[in-house]
């Protein structure tokens, strides 16, 4: 079987603690979708919950609040990886529960 665990962890380490143009605390907040600064909170919430609802205006508003494109790039990546990680972890837990009950 495939094994993405170490690669997924390396990705998370890189985006949260590697070099970037946003503070690690900002990236961690986007990853968790919790405590995101007001300038990006609406955008990150949409990325997490229903990314297809993101509009040009969401990006424009975040840019107008002072975030650069590179900073938005980092925060959106962190939000997306964080949301998918939580889905993945929860599904693995559901699988473990199903297997243990057999």
């Amino acid at each position, binding site marked *: 079987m495939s094994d*993405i665990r170490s690669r997924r962890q390396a990705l998370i380490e890189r985006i949260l603690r590697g070099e970037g143009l946003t503070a690690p605390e900002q990236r961690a907040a986007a990853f968790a979708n919790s405590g995101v600064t007001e300038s990006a909170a609406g955008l990150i919430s949409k990325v997490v919950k229903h990314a297809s609802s993101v509009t040009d205006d969401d990006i424009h508003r975040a840019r107008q609040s002072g975030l650069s494109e590179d900073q938005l790039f980092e925060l959106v990546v962190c939000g997306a990886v964080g949301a998918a990680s939580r889905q993945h972890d929860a599904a693995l837990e559901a699988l473990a529960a199903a297997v243990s009950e057999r």
Partner: protein
Amino acid sequence: MRLQILDSGHGLGTRALFAFIRVVSRQPVLDIIKLVKYRPEFYGKPMSAVTHEAMRGPSAWSIGDRELMAAVVAQANDCAFCTSAHAEVAKAAFGDEAKVAAVLADLDAATIGEPLRATLRMLRKLSREGGVSAEDMRDVLAAGGTQEQIQDALAVAFAFNTITRLAEAFGFVVAPPRAMKAGAKFLLARGYR
């Protein structure tokens, strides 16, 4: 795309690579390539390692099965770019366009094996609703899917629940059919590294 840096902020070497791709393929560079090649140390390289393992690593699922899973996850997330891209790869991998079209049109009625159908249902629910239950997993196991196959399918879902969010947030544009087919041909031959 919504961020100009993703369209035109790449370094000289990458811009030369894009020019080469345009000349050789006679197609525009797909937005997903522009994303993974932008500041690749931050996202593109580590994410490609995840995606390649999920899509081309050892698995009881075929490459076509996993590309179909990617397309179903993308469809569940309303991501037209990724649905189109991975449907094309699945069609090429299976050598069966009708099968892929049937799954995307009506999963319950498509002529596919029950383990794959149950797995695709579970992935669709996970992607749409954000979670699945132990009962959902028992349904896949009861249909003949193994624990290892489910873990492999969840790896595909992790990759595409990430990628589709980025595609939608950054405003990926679905390229003309010939360009999507050229991209599919490349992914089938070379994988995601």
